């Protein structure tokens, strides 16, 4: 039971690693990036890759619909009670960075209702290259861009490309059709990010989300160590 003089941290400040009952909360990973780059597809693939070994849940932040949540439900990547949609008032970056209250409520409710959880994936609504997640909401963030959005995006940089814990360059299968130079994208990303990792993936090929899933496993091992 809680005593009145303690401000039981976990429900007050949600970056705390412990929940009010003292147990470790789930690792929270954010996925951001421009509209249509493949965030939801990556979330779906991660759920399929990890759901047999981990207890998982997903929070989506759509801009004006529930489409991402409905796609995940339709694809049945997780049971419905493990998927929550947050409404963002026309400003997805506000809901993941400046005022994270609704997202924190969603992750805590998921832990209360379907927990214990190992991992919660938080997908941001598609936004611009400056959208990043607050450290109060997620422990690590993945920025997803694609080769079809222009191969100069890594060169342009911006907070997402430059600082995300993992940069995913998605849809490499489309590179020949849109004339994107993957080697140049890799070199530009390296210049922007120094030692931070970059994964090139195509969800339309056999390897699919394997490299990103492996990165998530490493983060989880570090979190629970």
């Amino acid at each position, binding site marked *: 039971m809680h005593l*009145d003089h303690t401000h*039981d941290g976990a429900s007050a400040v949600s970056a705390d690693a412990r929940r009010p009952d003292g147990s470790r909360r789930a690792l929270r990973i954010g996925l951001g990036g421009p509209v249509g780059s493949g965030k939801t597809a990556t979330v779906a693939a991660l759920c399929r890759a990890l759901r047999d070994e981990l207890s998982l849940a997903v929070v989506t932040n759509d801009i004006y619909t*529930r489409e991402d949540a409905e796609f995940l439900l339709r694809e049945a990547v997780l049971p419905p009670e493990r998927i929550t949609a947050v*409404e963002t008032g026309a400003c997805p970056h506000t809901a993941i960075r400046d005022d994270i209250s*609704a997202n924190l409520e969603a992750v805590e409710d998921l832990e209360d209702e379907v927990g214990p959880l190992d991992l919660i994936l938080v997908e941001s609504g598609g936004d611009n290259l400056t959208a990043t997640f607050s450290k109060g909401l997620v422990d690590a963030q993945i920025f997803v861009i694609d080769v079809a959005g222009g191969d100069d995006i890594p060169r342009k940089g911006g907070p997402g490309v430059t600082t995300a814990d993992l940069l995913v360059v998605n849809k490499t299968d489309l590179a020949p059709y849109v004339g994107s130079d993957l080697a140049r994208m890799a070199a530009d990303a390296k210049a922007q990010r120094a030692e931070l990792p970059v994964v090139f993936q195509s969800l339309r090929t056999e390897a699919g989300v394997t490299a990103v899933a492996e990165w998530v496993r490493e983060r989880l091992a570090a979190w629970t160590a």
Partner: protein
Amino acid sequence: MSRAALLVLADGRFPAGGHAHSGGAEAAVKAGRINGAASLEDFCRGRLNTAGLVSAALAAAAALGVDPALLDSAADARTPSPALRVAARRLGRQLMRAARATWPSGELDALARAFPKGAHQPVVLGLVARAAGLGPEDAAYCSAYESVSGPATATVRLLSLDPFDATGVLARLAPELDVVARAAADAARNVVDAGVDALPSASAPLLEIGAQAHAAWAVRLFAS
């Protein structure tokens, strides 16, 4: 106590979830009742003198130390729309989280334990004002101002209204805000002797009906 705490609490960027709510403006825009600065002003004036007055009085009473559980039932009784009760509790919970991190207080912890899924936002707001060392008038001002600043900001996004026009609306409403905040604080002081029935119960049927319709839309920008 610091009067400047009121500026922190009333700041539209205080991270308590309000940015995702339009205060009924999204439904009113769709229905054509808000289509520019003049009709936004009418809408805000109506909301200020109905829902705004009621929430300001609830906030002031909580700031005075009236039992928050009683105030929460009084808020329920004054909010016919289930969608608005849900929104008020959600915002109350989000404000609670931000406030406990900002102005830690035993009273806030106790309310969070009694209402884990959230008490009505104005009741939480009053208790937060108390935790920040502010008085009933301050709480009333903050709540009354929110009742018009929320719809004004939302309308800028919904109609691409000129932001200077929207801010002009708020400035023109300032004298009426003074009147409402004072009336709310007076009513709250009466509650101390006469009980929660002394709280105002002004209501705006179109806000309630609009909120019910809005909650059922498949595509919307704001949560309420």
